[in-house]
């Protein structure tokens, strides 16, 4: 193994990227766009769906209920006529309307609280805030209704997170890892394939370079770029998006570095099985999509069907995502056995694909 030859490959790789602005943009602008979009989508969205309230109750309870709904932050309530409700659902100006019938108070006093809830229904995501607001209003009404004598004061304790913890905090921790893994994998597989298609790999193979030197040189070059990208992603996520972080920033960076090693070497290894860039791009759905679906980024692994859990258990991203969430959400450190396991498996996967890359890089072309 010659350090001089390894350094020559690394230096050449960095020189190439210096002039390749499009790839640099993919490495350094794309993560900001993806994470920024995710942050805006989750935190910048108008989350309160419009809901109409038609209070026809001849007693007092309909009014109490309606005012509780109007104060709810889950929905944006407005007063309507019950007869307009259906037309408003159809034209899309409301996602639901709630009618308090003329005998609402009377029936409530008899023991049946029966508001009529009309949901547009085609988008499940907009229905749940309506039902959530309704529940809150019911609780509030029970506590505040004249003469009820009830007081609801639940004492809420969070083990992790907190009242301000939101969807971006949960997804952000996983996306930090995913974005780095995905972009580094794509760039590595295409760059290594270019080496083959432009004939330079044949030339390298006819030189005194060892296979290990080629893989190591590539790995170092891409790792330098990917670690700069990791720092950028981390700073943007923590300082700009304010993604919740309870743990040590160096641990997050360490986990990202392990993912970079895995992604770079997976790219080198899989490039051996593609002859054209088009074939290389076909690996993206094969490698990335199952990991996005099954690594716990979107759905917790524990809620998956058993056969899929077995698949999740062998995907490196499952451990990386779990590790990042443990650090950022739960404040895990290296004394946690679960983090040791996660980091160990991601590192082990990286080592495995390094060996696979070296083994499959053939000196002989036939």
């Amino acid at each position, binding site marked *: 193994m010659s350090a001089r030859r390894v350094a020559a490959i690394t230096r050449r790789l960095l020189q190439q990227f210096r002039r390749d602005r499009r790839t640099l943009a993919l490495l350094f602008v794309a993560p900001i766009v993806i994470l920024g979009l995710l942050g805006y989508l989750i935190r910048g969205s108008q989350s309160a769906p419009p809901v109409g309230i038609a209070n026809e109750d001849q007693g007092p309870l309909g009014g109490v209920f309606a005012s509780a709904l109007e104060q709810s932050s889950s929905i944006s309530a407005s007063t309507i006529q019950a007869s307009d409700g259906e037309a408003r659902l159809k034209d899309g100006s409301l996602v639901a309307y709630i009618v308090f019938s003329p005998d609402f108070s009377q029936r409530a006093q008899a023991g049946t609280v029966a508001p009529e809830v009309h949901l547009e229904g085609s988008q499940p995501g907009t229905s749940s805030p309506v039902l959530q607001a309704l529940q809150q209003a019911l609780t509030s009404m029970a506590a505040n209704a004249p003469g009820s004598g009830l007081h609801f004061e639940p004492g809420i304790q969070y083990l992790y997170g907190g009242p301000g913890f939101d969807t971006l905090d949960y997804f952000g921790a996983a996306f930090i890892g995913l974005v780095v893994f995905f972009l580094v994998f794509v760039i590595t597989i295409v760059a290594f394939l270019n080496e083959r298609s432009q004939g*330079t790999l044949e030339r390298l*193979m006819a*030189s*005194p370079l060892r296979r290990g030197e080629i893989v190591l040189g590539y790995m170092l070059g891409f790792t330098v770029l990917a670690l700069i990208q990791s720092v950028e992603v981390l700073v943007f996520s923590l300082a700009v998006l304010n993604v919740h972080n309870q743990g040590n920033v160096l641990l997050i960076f360490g986990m990202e570095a392990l993912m970079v090693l895995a992604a770079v070497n997976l790219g080198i290894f899989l490039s051996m099985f593609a002859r054209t860039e088009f074939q290389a791009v076909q690996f993206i759905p094969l490698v990335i999509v199952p990991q996005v679906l099954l690594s716990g980024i979107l759905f917790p692994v524990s809620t998956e069907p058993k056969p899929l859990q077995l698949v999740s258990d062998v995907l490196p991203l499952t451990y990386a995502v779990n590790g990042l969430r443990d650090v950022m959400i739960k404040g895990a450190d290296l004394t946690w056995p679960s983090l040791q396991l996660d980091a160990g498996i991601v590192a082990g996967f990286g080592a495995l694909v390094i060996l696979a890359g070296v083994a499959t890089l053939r000196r002989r072309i036939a």
Partner: protein
Amino acid sequence: MAEAFAVDVEGVQKSFGGLRALDGVTMRIRPGEIYGLLGPNGAGKTTLIRAIVGLVAPESGTVTVLGRRMPDVDQLRNIGYMTQQAALYPGLSVEENVQFFAAIYGAEGGVTEAMQLVKLDERRKSVVATLSGGMRQRLSLACALVHKPKVLLLDEPTVGVDPQLRVELWEDFHRMADGGTTIIVSSHVMDEAERCQRLGLIQYGKLLAEGTPAEVRAQAGTNNLEEAFLRLAGRRDES
């Protein structure tokens, strides 16, 4: 004795699927010799060069370079290989390409000389993507000889090179050969064959004839090398 030859190819066979690319090729090339591999496209010239450099594994037969049986990674430091396709890094400059290959061979001191040899020293800062086809070919040659190899394998080195530079390059090849470099050059251009000290005519993976250009012409009973090749190839087709 194998050591007496710079390159010793002995009964090499290689097939790709049902196609026999090399069919028992035997040839011996002396140190400092310019040996021309002549034949039409698809004759087996590139496969033979790849077998010599160790990129193709023969099914039978042996290849020995400078006394060592190939493939031998350490021996590759003594070999320069210019591929048929100008295999370069398009995003790097002329100088950066030569520097890279020089660094791999530990020959950083030869960068300027190699660029001067192929008349690209004034374009040293130009990015490869902006060069003409002929310039890329010249740069590819510079990358192959930057480490002053003892054996230089050139696969169609003058394709796309203008006539004046082609003459100059051949003068350089002869100068290198005078200095002891063994050069194997493949070509399908007959006027280049005249510049070689010895020729091997290859077709369908077989060596049809071998000798100096004069000997090859005599074997075919003609004064024209192109005519000689056609006659010798025709005899093979008939048999």
